[in-house]
């Protein structure tokens, strides 16, 4: 099929030797690129599915040598990690739902041309893109608000993302105004218009923003480290993974804290830091890797919408 295509095209369009060389170079480069992007993940996957003791011998590349699911069983039985997984899921689901809803609401308000405080609200939000209080003042604020040591410190500070706000606003402004006008003539209030007309019509952009927020929430570890490191019940998967990495990094040989952690259950050497790291890496990235390709069409649109029209 491909051959016919090329043959056909070469009749229509003259392909010079340079063109052919360029194509060969370009396609080989793209294949190299894919290998570089994919190999580390595939390698990690292979290690996570390989027997831990066997992995130490080295030489695992793309395929497990001694296949086992034990690493996953082990990680998913560990209470700390299971709890961390739960918190990660909870903050992702709750954080995304709350943030997208609130951001959409404000975006709707600042998309209404007739709104008397439109400019004021827009500027107040956009300004914060260019400065922030910085780490210490923000930390002290969280402390004064009593958010440290609570789950809500993951959700409340990030309710509205300004970039997302602009993306959604641009989308809503692109919707035909007549829809809102006619609903208003029919006696619909702002809340009805927002819930019954704007939200359903904005689903594509809301999908995009949900992806952005969900990725952010799922991948966060710094706020856990900063605000909740003394409360293990509120730890997240990424933070647990980060602790394992830091331990293996610091010792380079990787045989101290993570080792003790691995041996905590008494089954010595059934798992190793390397296999736990690999397994947790897969658990921590799989949800996103499985979801993002299906939202590609949307996030590309959302990104260019925000990029082109953002203040």
């Amino acid at each position, binding site marked *: 099929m491909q051959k016919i295509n090329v043959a056909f095209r070469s009749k229509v369009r003259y392909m010079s030797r340079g063109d052919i060389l360029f194509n060969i170079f370009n396609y080989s480069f793209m294949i190299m690129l894919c290998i570089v992007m994919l190999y580390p993940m595939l390698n990690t996957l292979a290690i996570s599915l390989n027997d831990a003791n066997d992995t130490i011998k080295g030489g695992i590349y793309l395929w497990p040598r001694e296949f086992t699911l034990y690493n996953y069983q082990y990680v998913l039985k560990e209470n700390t990690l299971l709890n961390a997984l739960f918190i990660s899921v909870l903050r992702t689901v709750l954080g995304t739902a709350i943030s997208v809803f609130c951001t959409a609401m404000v975006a709707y308000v600042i998309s209404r041309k007739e709104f008397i*405080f439109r400019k004021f609200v827009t500027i*107040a939000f956009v300004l914060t893109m260019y400065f922030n209080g910085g780490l210490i003042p923000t930390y002290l604020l969280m402390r004064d608000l009593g958010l440290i040591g609570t789950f809500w410190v993951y959700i409340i500070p990030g309710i509205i993302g300004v970039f997302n706000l602009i993306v959604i606003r641009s989308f809503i402004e692109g919707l035909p105004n007549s829809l809102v006008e006619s609903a208003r003539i029919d006696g619909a209030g702002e809340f009805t218009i927002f819930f019954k007309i704007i939200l359903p019509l904005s689903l594509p952009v809301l999908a995009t923003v949900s992806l952005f927020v969900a990725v952010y929430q799922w*991948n*966060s570890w710094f706020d856990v480290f900063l605000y909740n490191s003394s409360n293990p019940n509120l730890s997240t998967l990424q933070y647990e993974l980060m602790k394992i990495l830091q331990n293996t990094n610091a010792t380079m040989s990787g045989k101290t804290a993570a080792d003790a952690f691995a041996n905590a259950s008494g089954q010595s050497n059934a798992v190793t830091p390397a296999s736990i790291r690999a397994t947790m890496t897969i658990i921590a990235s799989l949800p996103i890797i499985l979801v993002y390709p299906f939202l590609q069409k949307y996030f590309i649109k959302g990104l260019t919408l925000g990029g082109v029209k953002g203040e």
Partner: protein
Amino acid sequence: MELEKNVRKETSPPMLPKKVKKKRKFWKTVIQQRALILMSFPFLIWLFVFKYVPLWGWTMAFQDYRPGLPFSEQEWVGLKHFKFLFQDEAFLRVLRNTLAMSVINLVLGFVTAITLAILFNELHNGKFKRIVQTISYMPHFLSWVVAAGIISYALSLENGIVNIVLQKLGIIDEPILWLGIGEYFWGIIGVSEVWKNVGWNTIIYLAAIAMIDPEQYEAAEIDGASRLQRIFYITLPSLKPTIVILLILNLGNILETGFEPQYLLGNPMNLDYSENLDIFVLKYGISMGNFSLATAAGIFKTVVSFILLFSANHIAKRLGQARLF
């Protein structure tokens, strides 16, 4: 920028004669739009508390802040902390690291993303193109924790794929402890950033390329322009406004090298090259409790970013280029 099609709709109310009426009209509008106000004002309060109130904390940089004391009893010390910073060797080193990594990331990031976008555009097999693009976006969605784990594993002494490949190719004889040698750190961060974000960064350029009129290419082809000539004389010039805008935005962020890669890949062996401003703030502020000094460093960062953003924008304006505002 907001001159959209809706503007011509009846936004201008019927002219009212005098100021008295204007005031009354204002309150009438407010009451009329109470639903919109109700929908946005709670978030304005949120915005004020979480984004504007922390600015008040900047005052700490001009005090010897001691936690627990009320504001009125804090001791004011003027620019003491700023003076200290610029005599502190550790701070100057941190500043050097930050700038070096920023510049490396900026240059590498721009060149690779633009090149890749152009190469994507030259792929004519739609399905292949889509698959490669999707794969290239993947690392962007990984957390830095995951990415740092992957990178440090790939660079490790035993079993690290980088050492294995370089040895097989005969480029090095002995495996290298990449993260143990400070001089390599900036380069490692640069390459890591490219690996993670190059695909993602092409999106905006591809959108700009998609806006180019295909007739330009057809005409050039008829005139006998080669593939490379078309790239250099049509595609690249069309990308110029996008490049300028992104450059301005990124210049404003030059002191924001990011925090996660440096923190996660840094270790005692490469400390002299890996510590950047954010890590400095974290170390002094949270670990050592020297809030005033850390805040001063944070303020320095924000102010420099602001100045850079505005001057880059101003220069672009002078040169008659596209600009941010």
